[in-house]
């Protein structure tokens, strides 16, 4: 293995643009996936039984199949049903939907973890159902599920690598291509591993920071 970082330095603009694509697609799909997951969890909890049943099936399918397969079906199978997407939107939609399935399960457990008494106390002072959801359940749940959400975000950053399969110009595709051109594929993959690992560490650090800030009201004795 010959680590030629000088060579990599020449390609810095490309690498940075790949890094940028990875970053924004990760952040956007994590946020949208969490929001969609929250809606799914809410609809499953408060909606009619048929809605719950249908969404449960969707979640099971999404969690029971590899992301790679889902992405292939969306990108290459989409045109057969009139859904023709560019790589970046396809990747973003695919990753968001994939993420939402896992986030919805996290939030579903979160809903169950909010003590019944906290909701009853809110009913007793006259909060309406939507006010209780917005003011009590959602914030309490958020702090309960924060560690799992950080964990999911970390999984998602690694899943962005799969977007290279449908030619999204993200980090794995850019660095992989450079590696192949330069006959330094292993070096490139090594560099790539370091990039992902640094991103994961940063994400974990931010998560711990947020958790520490929330800790004073996380473990209220009751």
């Amino acid at each position, binding site marked *: 293995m010959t680590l030629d970082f000088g060579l990599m330095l020449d390609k810095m603009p490309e690498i940075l643009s790949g890094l940028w694509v990875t970053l924004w697609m990760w952040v956007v799909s994590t946020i949208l996936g969490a929001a969609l997951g929250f809606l799914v969890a809410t609809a499953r909890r408060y909606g009619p039984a048929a809605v719950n049943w249908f969404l449960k099936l969707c979640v099971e399918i999404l969690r029971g199949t590899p992301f790679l397969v889902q992405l292939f079906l969306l990108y290459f199978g989409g045109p057969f049903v009139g859904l023709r997407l560019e790589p970046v939107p396809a990747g973003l939609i695919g990753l968001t939907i994939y993420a939402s399935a896992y986030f919805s399960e996290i939030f579903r457990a979160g809903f169950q973890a909010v*003590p019944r*008494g*906290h909701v*009853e*106390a*809110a*009913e*007793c*002072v*006259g*909060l*309406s159902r939507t*006010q209780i959801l917005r*003011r*009590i359940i959602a*914030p*309490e749940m958020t*702090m309960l599920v924060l560690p799992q959400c950080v964990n999911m975000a970390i999984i998602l950053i690694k899943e962005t690598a799969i977007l290279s399969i449908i030619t999204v110009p993200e980090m794995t595709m850019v660095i992989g291509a450079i590696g192949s051109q330069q006959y330094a594929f292993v070096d490139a993959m090594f560099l790539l591993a370091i990039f992902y690992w640094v991103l994961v560490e940063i994400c974990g650090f931010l998560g711990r920071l947020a958790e520490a800030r929330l800790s*004073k*009201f*996380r*473990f*209220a*004795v*009751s």
Partner: protein
Amino acid sequence: MSSTRPSPATDDIPAVTVKGVTKRFGDTEVLQGIDLSVPTGATTCLIGPSGSGKSTLLRCIAFLEEATTGTILIHGDPLGFAEGPNGQRSRLSPQKIRAVRSRIGMVFQQFNLWPHMTALGNVCEALVTVRKMKRSEAEDLGMAQLSRVGLENRAGHYPSELSGGQQQRVAIARALALDPEILLFDEPTASLDPELTGEVLNVMRDLADSGMTLLVVTHEIGFAATVGRRIAFLDHGKLLLNGTPQELFGEPRHPRLGQFLETYLDRGAATLL
């Protein structure tokens, strides 16, 4: 808000009237036809063995449970259901239900403070979200309620930063902030360390002295005997006895009540009777 208070002329209407209330959970009838009236401006204590249905009755009055049959009136106004001329019940509109419910305050055994809000935040929440008060106004009122329970210097603390006794006092302030006509307590000191029960009981004693209507489920027999104007004894889902402390605790005692009180003799409560 004081306009929701009954005028002195209506004070002879009980704060709470419970008429023929039953409550079933599946096959078990937890409340078997309860009739009870809670006088205005005094403290009524509800005592009885564990599992006798005290919490269920209190929760029906707070409308956290719906009575299977029977009627509950709050100062004469039906709670949850209106009774038709032939005795059939019909459900009131959500707004009407909330309007009557808002006249009742509830304090739980487990405090149930919202952990993501400070003490002041807990007290102000409903003032802002429900009563649509300005935040600054609500905070003034909230601070006043916190001083009433002796916690004005803990306003910025989160529940996890407060002792159990302090949390329960915040919960009382939260209920008081809405200026309720009746305060319900479900074993407010039962999950506190013994040395912390006093501070909560003292706050409740002050409220009783100030003429609030309190309905207290408690195992603190000493408190019931000294603060309670009326004592109701619940046993196996039936209201067995209902009277003044003298009538219930004096001799001769009802055998079931005697049995129940025996369990407190070890705890030194006998000396208080």
